[in-house]
Every structure is written in structure tokens, then in C-alpha cells.
């Protein structure tokens, strides 16, 4: 028996070696394939419901096109629309479509497709996540085959940002019923298959209007939930790109011989939110005390290991409107203690801090606040809850992070305006001056004027708001040494334009 076992073991070892050489020997395929990892499956295959980002946005930008898009410097650039213009009152927006663009199913895109796409997005029955942004649309028309006209109920200077939303991809009007079973877009890659926990496969669209910029015959997204596994696969050459490296893996991969990291600041921000409809946060002194306890620089350093930048509001520090003259205050526990006493808590106060579980960055933020709060006699009890049970609207005090938007208006309005969708649900922050500033900025296209308004806004946001915004996070992707011409984008989606694989 023992001898048999020993022989067996040797045979197994031998066959393992054999397998290894066979696997190691696979290369020199005629076809070029780019393999990318994503750590979570999509939430939905209907672009109107894309809200998770990650894989959703990454395949979306390859399979679909929008009227307008953002480049990596957050400028609005043409996509399916060649050009656009607003009427003097900023209420009528006219887009001219690129001619001769074809859907993957073969038909040419025309203005009626755009109208049908936007009607679908604006129909509450389809539960589109940008429904709120489309409330100001009064009319969508197609005056001719290549012209689309939006008529808005109110002047809105940032309208082209709305038409760049990831959800606003142009779909064929005659295939709207099969959006999730037969994915048809106009983008540089055609959808082939998707296996919720396995691979999403795309194949090059030779008819794309800018086809020469996209070099790979196929693109494969692999869902790999564990970053340790994904990084090991990258270093071994099984993957070409690991999308969205967490801070703890950025430094690890920087020392790799076979792979490297591309890191870029983004607009994704994190905040301690305070619900002003729930005591004790209905008391302005308590809110001010929390502002006094936060040392943005220190928290950014501890929570992100330096892979982020402190900021005053969701307006990121690299934005031209960001005002670096406004001090990012250090913590002042003595002042906070005094404020709490004035608020009626001279003997200390206990607050419950809620946060989504399994987010190490947010955990480190929470612990840092808890430690400094002790000096002000404030006890912070931390409650991590599973993400899908984390409902900010019922929590008095919370930490969360939010994907960056692309224009000052979309970055700020929904959070700081008293009628903003996020604010009315979660924080109930009200400031007449902030309302006025945000509204005024919507009604002008004069950049100097806008800058003045947003500077004043930031002065207020440094000390008051629906919560204390702490930092914007960096986004990083890991990529193999064979990948050439790749750079991470602040939009957090992969830009594969002119990226190639060296052999």
C-alpha cells in the first residue's frame, strides 16, 4: 500500500510538471487579446441602470457611444455628436450627429435613435438612474436625420455633461426590447458573451468610426473577486490589466519585475455625513464640533497611505475652480469640546457612526476620527453594516464614498442644494446662500463668473455642509510590462485608445 502511495505521489508530481510546461508553452497566437480583471460582476446589463461603475462602465465605453463624452482631462468632447450648441437662454441645445456610424447590427444611427434612447431614459417605468437629471427636459425632437434638439424647462449650462453620462448610450430604437439579451451598440468593440462570474468577451468592431485607434482583436474582462489572486495573475502574465487597485496593492505592485502601476487623482470623494433631521445633528453646534475634529490631511494619510488628496468639497483639488487659498484646517479638539458644551453636552456625547462593511479605507477613516474625538469628550461608536443594508437616509452619522462627477454642477448640486436628490434623501442640509450660489452657476456660461460663485461656495463648505468631505481618492490600475501606451484615467474607466501589446 505504501509503495503504491509513493508511486502514485511521484506520478502526480510528474503530471503536475507536465501540465505546467504545457500551460507555460501557450503563446504566439495570431490574434491579439487584452485580458483585464474586474473584481465585481455588473449590477445590470441595461445601461440605463448602470450605477456600480467598475465593469459596467468599462464595458460600456467599449461597446457603446454617447452623444458627447469626457476625455481624460474632463473636457467634454464629441462622441456620436460632431458638434452641439446652445441657444442664448441656455434652454435649447442642438446636436449634429456624425454621419455613417453603424450599430453592431448593421443599421446606420440616426436622430430617431437618439430620441428613442432619451425617451426610454426619461420614462420612469425603465427606472433609469439618470431619470432625475432628465426632469428638466421638456421636448426631444429630430428636425432632420442628423439633428437632435433638446428643449429644457430651465437654463442649464452643464447640459452636455448630462449627455455624456455613462447611462446615456445611444441604442437602436428597433431593438430596445432585447437590450439585456442581445447587446447592440456602436462602440469600438462588439459584445460577444457574458458569464456573471467568469468572462465578458468583446470582439473588435472594424466598422467603428475611429477603428484604427483600437488595436486588440478581442478584449476579455475576467471577474476576479480577490485582489491577491488578480495581482498574482497579472504578475504571471495571465492578465494584462488589473482594474482599480486598492491602495494596499499599489505599493506592492510598484516593486514588481513584470508589472507596473498607473495612478491618477480622481473626483471620487469620501465624507463623514450628518443627517440634520436626526438629533443631535439637528444642532448646528454639534455639526461644527465635528468639523473641528477632522484633520483632513491626517485622515487622508492614514486611510489612503498617501494615495489621495485632501479636499474641501467634492470639487477635486485638480479642478480649475478649486481654491487652494482656503485653509484645510487641522483638528482643534479643544474648540470642539467647547462647542459640544455650548450645544448642551458639557459631560460628553456618544454618537453612532455607520459605514458600509469591508471597506478598509472607510474603516481607517472611522478609527482615526474615533481616536481624536476622545479628546473632545465625544464617543464615536462605529457600526459597519453590509453595503446593501447601508441606508444612509435612516442613519444620523455615516461615512461613505461617492464616484466623482465631471462638472462642478453635477459634483455639487445634488449634495448641497436644499432640493438636491441626495441631500433631500439623506442629509437635509439647508443653506440659503449655498442654494443661491449653485443656482446662479447653472445659469451662466461665463467661466470667471462661475469661478467666483464656486469659490464662495467652497469657503462655506469648508465649515458647513451635509458633512465633512475629507479627500478625493486616487485611481490606479496595474498593468503588465507588455502593455504599451496605457495610462489610468481620472474617469476610472480604461482608455484603450492606442494601447498595444508588445511581444
Amino acid at each position, binding site marked *: 500500500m505504501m509503495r503504491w502511495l509513493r508511486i502514485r505521489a511521484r506520478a502526480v508530481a510528474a503530471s*503536475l510538471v507536465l501540465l505546467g510546461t504545457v*500551460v507555460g508553452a501557450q503563446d504566439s497566437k495570431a*490574434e491579439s487579446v487584452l485580458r483585464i480583471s474586474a473584481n465585481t460582476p455588473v449590477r445590470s446589463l441595461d445601461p440605463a441602470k448602470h*450605477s456600480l461603475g467598475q465593469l459596467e462602465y468599462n464595458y460600456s465605453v467599449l461597446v457603446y457611444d454617447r452623444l458627447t463624452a469626457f476625455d481624460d482631462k474632463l473636457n467634454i468632447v464629441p462622441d456620436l455628436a460632431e458638434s452641439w450648441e446652445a441657444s442664448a437662454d441656455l434652454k435649447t441645445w442642438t446636436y449634429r450627429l456624425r454621419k455613417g456610424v453603424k450599430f453592431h447590427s448593421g443599421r446606420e444611427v440616426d436622430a430617431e435613435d437618439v430620441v428613442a434612447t432619451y425617451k426610454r431614459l426619461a420614462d*420612469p417605468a425603465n*427606472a433609469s438612474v439618470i*431619470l432625475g437629471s432628465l426632469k428638466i427636459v421638456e421636448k426631444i425632437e429630430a428636425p432632420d436625420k442628423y439633428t437632435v434638439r433638446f428643449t429644457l424647462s430651465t437654463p442649464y449650462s452643464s447640459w452636455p455633461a448630462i449627455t455624456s453620462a455613462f447611462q446615456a448610450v445611444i441604442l437602436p430604437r428597433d431593438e430596445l426590447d432585447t*437590450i439585456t439579451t442581445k447587446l447592440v451598440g456602436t462602440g469600438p468593440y462588439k459584445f460577444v458573451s457574458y*458569464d456573471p462570474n467568469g468572462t465578458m468577451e468583446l470582439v473588435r468592431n472594424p466598422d467603428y468610426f475611429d477603428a484604427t485607434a483600437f488595436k486588440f482583436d478581442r478584449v476579455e474582462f475576467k471577474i476576479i473577486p480577490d485582489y491577491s489572486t488578480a495581482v498574482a495573475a497579472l504578475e504571471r502574465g495571465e492578465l494584462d490589466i488589473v482594474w482599480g487597485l486598492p491602495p494596499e496593492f499599489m505599493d506592492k505592485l510598484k516593486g514588481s519585475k513584470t508589472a507596473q502601476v498607473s495612478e491618477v487623482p480622481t473626483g471620487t470623494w469620501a465624507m463623514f455625513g450628518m443627517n440634520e433631521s436626526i438629533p443631535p445633528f439637528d444642532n448646528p453646534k454639534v455639526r461644527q464640533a465635528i468639523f473641528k475634529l477632522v484633520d483632513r490631511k491626517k485622515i487622508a494619510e492614514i486611510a489612503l497611505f498617501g494615495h489621495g488628496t485632501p479636499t474641501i468639497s467634492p470639487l477635486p483639488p485638480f479642478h480649475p475652480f478649486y481654491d487652494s487659498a482656503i485653509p484645510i484646517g487641522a483638528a482643534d479638539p479643544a474648540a470642539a469640546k467647547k462647542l459640544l458644551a455650548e450645544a448642551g453636552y458639557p459631560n460628553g456625547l456618544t454618537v453612532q457612526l455607520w459605514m458600509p462593511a469591508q471597506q478598509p479605507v472607510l474603516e481607517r477613516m472611522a478609527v482615526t476620527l474615533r481616536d481624536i474625538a476622545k479628546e473632545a469628550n465625544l464617543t464615536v461608536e462605529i457600526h459597519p453594516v453590509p453595503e446593501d443594508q447601508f441606508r444612509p437616509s435612516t442613519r444620523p452619522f455615516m461615512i461613505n464614498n461617492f464616484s466623482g462627477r465631471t462638472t462642478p454642477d453635477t459634483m455639487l448640486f445634488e449634495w448641497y442644494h436644499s432640493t438636491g436628490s441626495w441631500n433631500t434623501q439623506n442629509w437635509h442640509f439647508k443653506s440659503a446662500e449655498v442654494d443661491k450660489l449653485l443656482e446662479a452657476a447653472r445659469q451662466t456660461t461665463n467661466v470667471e463668473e462661475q469661478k467666483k460663485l464656486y469659490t464662495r461656495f467652497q469657503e462655506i463648505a469648508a465649515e458647513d455642509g451635509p458633512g465633512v468631505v475629507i479627500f478625493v481618492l486616487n485611481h490606479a490600475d496595474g498593468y503588465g510590462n507588455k502593455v504599451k501606451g496605457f495610462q489610468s484615467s481620472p474617469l476610472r474607466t480604461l482608455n484603450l485608445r492606442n494601447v498595444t501589446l508588445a511581444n
Partner: protein
Amino acid sequence: MAIYFLKRLGYIAAIIVLMSLLVFLVTHVLPANTAEVILGEYATAETKAALEQKLGLNLPLPVQYLRWAGGLLHGDFGQSVILEQPIAPILWTALGRSALIAIPTLLIVTLVGIGIGVVSAVQYRRPLDRLTSLGTYVAVSVPEFFWGLVFILVFSSYLNWLPTSGNGSPGDSLWARLAHLVLPVATLTLGLQAHVSRLMRSSMLEALRSNYVRAARARGMPERTVILRHALRNAMLPTITVLAQDLGFLVGGIVAVETIFAYPGIGRLLVYAVSRHDLPLMEAVILVVTAIYCLANLAADLLYGAFNPRIRYGRSVD
């Protein structure tokens, strides 16, 4: 025999119906709801209501259940509410892939587990027994995800023999695809074989000390025949039971192993369905897993009857 078999099938059907009700009810008392999960941070009362209407989530619970169960009776697993695609193809593909891990694992666990158990019983308290005991305890006490990561580090990153994850790409060769199975199977086997080998060792020890083994030895039978024909056959019985139960552990282990190795099987499909509150998908996966577990236990019981030593022994002795 036929009546026993039919009766057991009846029980299995009842268990499956009960299970489906239980899953349905449990998911409805969970705090989050499907529409919120789909819409995420952008959920508003309006879009939530619209989505619930579209997905039929606003109907009364019994109606939702009967709709779903009615479809199932026609062999229709329904649509995944998250993917908005039919469930059946997704489910069978994932199940097939998991079978590629589970079946080799069970085979290896059976062979290796029984082998180690017999050897350590025969070598009772000698160094080899102590060594296998220690090894088995270490293997079983450390959770799968740890072994998984260790294997990736050693066999993929360091030795560069085997792929870290996934199940290969559409164009890969058969060998390349098989290579993806090695580490998941090895990880699962490590923990499971301990159940079998420990149980096999103790029942083998018991058998070796029994009177009939003593009698066989006294009659001068070669030790090999005593161990393999007399002791082993008797000691096999509890092992068959534990193997059927191990199928349950296997499902748990598969969830962990598929996650570490990013292998797209049924375990991760279940996690996906639960985390996304995709009720029809969750129901489908759990029912298929339940059915497999019940059938495996039935098979074990039938096998038990076939292995019954009193019948076999009586025949072979004269």
C-alpha cells in the same frame, strides 16, 4: 426495494418544496430589497417603485411565489431579475463547471482518504501514523481560502506551473483548461480528505481489533488479505455515509475555492444571487444544490445496502 426508493423520492420532493418556501420567505425578511440593490446609490422612491412594478416585486408574496413555482413546474427557472436574462443556461453552465471540480475532488478524497485512513490504522502509533495524523489535522484546521492563497503563491507565482485563476479562455487548449482545475481541486481535497481519513482510521482500528479479524489471523491468512478483505470492507460503511455528507461540505468549500480562484461555478453564482438579492436566481441555485444533496444521500443509502457486510460476508465465507 422499489417502494423504499419511491418513498425516498417522495421525501426529497417534499424537502425541495419546503426549501423553496423557506428561501422565498427568508429573502423577503432580509432588510434590503432588490430594486434598491439594482439602483444603488441613485435609488429614488420613484425609480424604485417603477422597477418593482417592472419586475413584479410589488405583487403580494403568495402570488410572487406561485408565479415562480408555476414556471418551475413547466421546467422554466424564470428570469434573473438582475441580469434580465433566462436563468436556465446560466445555471447549467455554472453547475457543469463546478462538477468539473467537485467530481474529481470526491474521487480523490475517496481514494486518498481511504488510503491514508487504512495506512495510519495499520501503522497505528508508529511514526507514519503520527505524521499523517498531524498532516490531516493541519490540513483540516486551516480554512480553504488560506490554502488557496498558499497554493497560488507556491504553484503559480513562485514555481510558475499553474494558472492562478479562472477557467481559461475560449481559444485555450484542453490541457490549458484542465490546468485551471488543479489548484481548486487540490485545495478542496485537502480539507475534505481529513473527514474521510480520520473516520476511516478509527473504523479500521475498530475492525482490526475485532474478533473476526483475530480469527482470520489465527487461521493464518496473509495480513494483506486480512486487511483488505476482512477489515476494510467492514470499515467502509461509515465512510460511505460521511462521503455523502461531505457533499454538503463540498458545496460550502466550493463557494470559498471558487472565490479565491475566480472560478465561475455554482458557488459563486449563489453568492452573486444572494448579494444582489436576485430571488429567482437564488431559488434556482439553492434548489438544484438541495436536490443534488438529497440524491447523493439517497445514493449513499442504496450503496450502504449493497455493501451490507452481513450479506456479503455470509456469501464469501463458505
